[in-house]
C-alpha cells in the first residue's frame, strides 16, 4: 500500500469504520470479539485494497466468513447474560450511550440464540438495510431463503424473554 492508497484506505475506514464495528458486534454478539473481527477484516481489506471494487461489500462478506470460521473453530457459546426484563419507550435516555449499554446485553443475548446465518441475514437485512437481493447475493443463497430465514429468525427473537419484552414494550407506544 503506497501513501495515496493509505489515505484512501483511512478515508474509507473513517467513513465506514463505526458501522462495520457495529455490524461485527451484532454478528459476534460480543463487543470485544467484534473488535478483533473488525481489526482482522480491515487487515484483510488492506492486503487487497487495490483490487477491491466495493470495500464495504468486501468487509461484510469477510466479517461473515470470520464469524463462521470462529464458530466452527471453537463452537464458542455466547456468554450467558442476564436478560433485561423491561424497557420504557419514553425513557429520556433512549438513544444515548447509557441506553445503548443497557439495551446491548439483552439484544446480543437474543441474537446469540440464532445461527450465524440467521444472524447475518437479520443484521444485513434490518441493521445494514441491504435489500433481500443483496443479502442473497452476499451470502450465496436464494432470495426465498433470505425471506424465510429472516421471518423465522425474527419470530425466534420474539420468543426470547428479554428481547420479546423489549419489542413488546416498544410496540405499545
Amino acid at each position, binding site marked *: 500500500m503506497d501513501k495515496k492508497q493509505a489515505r484512501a484506505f483511512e478515508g474509507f475506514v473513517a467513513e465506514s469504520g463505526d458501522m462495520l464495528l*457495529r455490524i461485527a*458486534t451484532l454478528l459476534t454478539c460480543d463487543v470485544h470479539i467484534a473488535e478483533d473481527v473488525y481489526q482482522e477484516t480491515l487487515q484483510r481489506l488492506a*492486503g487487497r485494497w487495490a483490487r477491491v471494487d466495493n470495500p464495504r461489500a468486501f468487509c461484510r462478506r469477510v466479517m461473515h466468513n470470520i464469524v463462521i470460521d470462529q464458530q466452527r473453530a471453537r463452537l464458542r457459546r455466547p456468554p450467558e447474560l442476564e436478560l433485561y426484563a423491561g424497557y420504557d419507550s419514553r425513557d429520556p435516555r433512549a438513544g444515548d450511550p447509557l441506553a445503548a449499554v443497557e*439495551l446491548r446485553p439483552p439484544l446480543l443475548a437474543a441474537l446469540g440464540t440464532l445461527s450465524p446465518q440467521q444472524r447475518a441475514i437479520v443484521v444485513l437485512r434490518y441493521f445494514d438495510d441491504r435489500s433481500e437481493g443483496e443479502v442473497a447475493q452476499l451470502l450465496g443463497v436464494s432470495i426465498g431463503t433470505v425471506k424465510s430465514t429472516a421471518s423465522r429468525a425474527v419470530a425466534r427473537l420474539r420468543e426470547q424473554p428479554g428481547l420479546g419484552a423489549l*419489542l413488546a414494550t*416498544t410496540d405499545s407506544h
Partner: protein
Amino acid sequence: MPATDEDLLRDLMHRATGDLRARSEITTGIVTASRRRHVRGRALGIGVTGAAAAAAVGVAAVASSASGSGHAARPGNSGQAIQLTAAQRTLKHLSARAAAAAAPVGPWVKMTEQAGGQKKTTIIDTRNGNVWTYQPDAGKGVPPVLFSKAGMPTAAQLAAYPTSTASLRVFLIRQARQQQAQAEREMLAQAAKLPKRLRHLKRITMASQPKETSNDWAFSQTAYVLWNPEISPSLRAALLKVIAATPGVAVNSHATDSLGRPAVEISRYDPQAKYTEAVFEAPDATRVLETDSMEPATPARNGLPGEKAYQLYDTYLSITWSATRPSA
C-alpha cells in the same frame, strides 16, 4: 403507526450499538503494517537500505497497484504448465540462450513500461545507480518526474554478484532476508510510536506476516532481480539456473504476455503468501516482457460465494541502452 417487529428490531439494533466507535488507532496500525510489503516490493539495491531502494524503484509498484486496473482477465493464456524436470530442461535451455546473447553497451538504460494502465519511463545511469522515473499520467499527488540517487544497483555491484548457481542462490536468499529484516525494523519503529494499549497490534501484524521458506525467497528474489533492465547476459543466465534449481517452478514455453507477445512463462505459487508470481521471459532470453502477481479465486465455502481471482501485471515495452543520456 403500527410498528412491525422488523422496524422495532432495526430501531433496537441501532440504539443498542449507537455508542460503539471504531478506534482509529487500529487503522493506523494496519496501514503501517501493510506498507511493509510495499516497502519490500521492488527493493533491488544492495548498497542502499530497503527504504531507499523502495523509494526509488517502488514507483513501479505504485503504478502497478493503482486501483481497478488489475481486474482485467487475460484471455488465451491457459496453456499447460510443464512441471519439474521438463521445466528445468526449458530453463537450462533459456539460460544457455541468455549466456550467448551479446552484452549491451551503456552506461545508460532506458526502459518503458506499462503498469496499471499507465505508461512510465525509467532512465538509469548504471555507473552510479541514479534513476529518473517519468510518469506523466500518474495522476494527482504523484510528481511527473521522480529522481532517486543510487536507487538501483550499479553495474559494478551487479558484476559482483556470484556466478555459480549455488552461491548466487545463497546470496539472493540472504539479500531478500536482509531487505525483509530492514523493512521489519522500519515497521517496528513505526509500531513503537503507537500508544501503549495498542502495542498488541504489533504482535498481531508481525504474526500475520507469511513465513517464507528459502525456496520462496529464492524464487521471489530471483524474479525481482531478473526484472532489472541492467542485468547482464551472464547474470541473467545464472539467475535462470537458480530458478531451475528451485522446487515448485512451472514453465509454459508457449505463453503470451498481456500484449500477445510470445513468451516463456515462469511461475511459482508461494504457499505462504498464497499467491502466484509469474515472470514472462522473452523467448530469446534477453529480457523480461512482463511480471505478474496472481491470487487464485477463493472457492465458495460455507455456502458463501468465493472471491474472484485477480491479477496485477507490469508490462515492459522496451529496453534500450545508450552511451549518452537518452531523452524521456
